[in-house]
């Protein structure tokens, strides 16, 4: 006996748009059932930070790094909002989907590869982060942050940064043996990165070695890019910052695919 002749016309390739669309449609349809809670947590949390630091700490410090403190925090916290709305949902969401809901088993039984699955998931999370990341900046406007045309670039910066952090979160979920393992990542990786990102105080106040290390922190580069955009202070440095974000995104994307292939394919 021989196997049935395959209809070669149905040959499929890597990164098919229909596969990416299929995964994205799933996310969009699902989002319709939980958008309220997701929007609430992704906007309220950074806004609370903004209010607490901007007006609490801001009453003690009027200017930082040449900016009004509200302006400094209102722009800096965009990157934090992106982190909160990309890395965390990617970590927990990915883990739940493969470990408890087995959603990825269902998707991979369809003509979708792990590369496409990871890419589409990261694209979706980055898109959400691109929107949610702008919320603190918009909240800061009524409190004194001057609107500018450069603000229109911020969603793109947030998107690029969010893509990298989404892939980072997916990679962490892919390597994690249990959901409790995330505590190590949050405490040992994300919190230090968050604190040395120049969000609440300029990194020039840090020791020299920490300032050097901060340049490798994608969160810091996001913060600086957002400030350059909002305050119209573009320079050649910003191209390098953009490069750091792109390399970070590319690297995390491949690591995330590798991690999820290990996790999903026996």
């Amino acid at each position, binding site marked *: *006996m*021989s*196997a*049935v*002749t*395959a*209809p070669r016309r*149905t*040959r*499929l390739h890597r990164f098919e748009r*229909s*596969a990416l*669309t*299929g*995964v994205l*449609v*799933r996310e969009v*349809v*699902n989002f319709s*059932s*939980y958008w309220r809670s997701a929007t609430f947590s992704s906007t309220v949390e950074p806004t609370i930070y903004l209010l607490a630091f901007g007006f609490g700490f801001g009453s003690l410090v009027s200017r930082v790094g040449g900016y009004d403190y509200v302006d400094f925090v209102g722009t800096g916290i965009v990157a934090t909002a992106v982190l909160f709305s990309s890395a965390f949902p990617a970590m927990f969401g990915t883990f739940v989907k493969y470990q408890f*809901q*087995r*959603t990825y*088993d*269902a*998707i*991979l*039984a*369809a*003509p*979708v*590869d792990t590369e496409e699955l990871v890419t589409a998931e990261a694209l979706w999370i980055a898109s959400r982060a691109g929107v949610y990341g702008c919320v603190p900046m918009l909240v800061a406007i009524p409190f004194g942050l001057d609107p500018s045309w450069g603000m229109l670039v911020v969603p793109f910066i947030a998107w690029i940064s969010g893509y990298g952090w989404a892939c980072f979160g997916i990679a962490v979920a892919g390597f994690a043996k249990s959901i409790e393992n995330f505590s190590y990542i949050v405490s040992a990786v994300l919190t230090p990165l968050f604190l040395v990102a120049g969000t609440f105080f300029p990194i020039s106040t840090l020791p020299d070695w920490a300032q050097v290390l901060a340049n490798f922190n994608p969160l810091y580069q996001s913060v600086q890019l957002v400030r350059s955009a909002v305050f119209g202070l573009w320079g050649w440095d910003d191209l390098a910052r953009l490069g750091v974000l792109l390399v970070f995104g590319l690297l995390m994307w491949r690591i995330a695919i590798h991690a999820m292939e290990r996790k*999903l*394919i*026996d």
Partner: protein
Amino acid sequence: MEDVRGDHGLGRVGRGAQVDELQRGAVGGDPAVGADLDRDLGVGVQVFAAGGLVRVAGFEAGRRRDVADRNLVADPLALADAELPADASAATGLELCAEGAHEPRIDNAHGWHADSVTELAVRIRGAVKRYGPITAVAGLDLDVPMGTCVGLLGPNGAGKSTTMRLLTAQAIADEGELEVLGYTLPEESKQARALCGVAPQLDNLDVTLTVYQNLLVFSHLYRVPRAERNDAIERAVTMAKLGDRVDSRVDKLSGGMRRRLLIARALLHGPRLVLLDEPTVGLDPQVRQELWALIDALRSQGTTILMSTHYIEEAQRLADTVLIMSHGQAVASGPPSELVTEHAGQEVLEVYGPPNRLAEVETEAGAAGLRTRRTGTSVSVLGVDGGNGFDVDGERRPANLEDVFVLLTGEEIA
């Protein structure tokens, strides 16, 4: 199964649409040719002989023709010679071929035997899958002919689910060759998956979405064209009898409905092969019956099905061919009735008594060349239909697949 051969002495034929089709020609002792041209396989034409009746299956794209009413064969036994009726081509309007691998055969149990089918939906040779020190699949060979339902029967841990995962490339074999619908795995698994539907053992539906939304998502994933999506969803929910629950959230559905939805999801894109992994596990008997009816309806439509199960009755009722697995290997395969006849005979004698009496019976049966199995407080003596000089009081019952399974593997299953 159903006997549509009357007194021709060739036994029973398949169920569902096969029976319907065959009955049109065979009942009344007037064999005819049946042609079922319903799929575009792009591989030419197949001819199956079944109890004095030729079934022609194969294809020209988009054509469908039934010629079951034509009386083309005068002598049903002549079909065993693999001769295609001279006027079959005229009757079907197609160029038919009955050469080489396309030889028709008469099967005495299921109407048409796997060997009579030339196209395989699944072909596995020597598949091995190891997880560290554990070998989940150990040199498995498996053929699933197009248009048949093959059941993988075995206890938990036999390697059934791993085999299913190998076929969707969610597990990669360490050794062996695997082909699904002509595509080599794992390299071409994406193409194969586009033509397969999978209903997994574990529920992986999106529970916060409605039935419609779940199907909509997978209509995208399975690349159902936009213009056909609603029709595809409607067909799937109708088939799964979920038409009145389309707008219900999945977490509001019963376990049986959710399992039906899993099957509906697998059927959205009109797959050529459906993989059902333990389709009724954990369900109550009534729901199980409903799912059996659904699976039988699929079979009737000619859908190729590979189903894993650890329920003997399920395999016996639904599968054309059963492959018994144990410790990752195939220990026997064939139509259920043939397996039973071959390994356990027609009848089994159940002898009850104290342990020493059971031991005596085992000794006597062994002396008579009969095989036995202990079943709790009794001993079952297999193959007593021939007599074999074995004369012990006990209850006679028909042999079944469980007897075969226990005999071959030494394991009890559900």
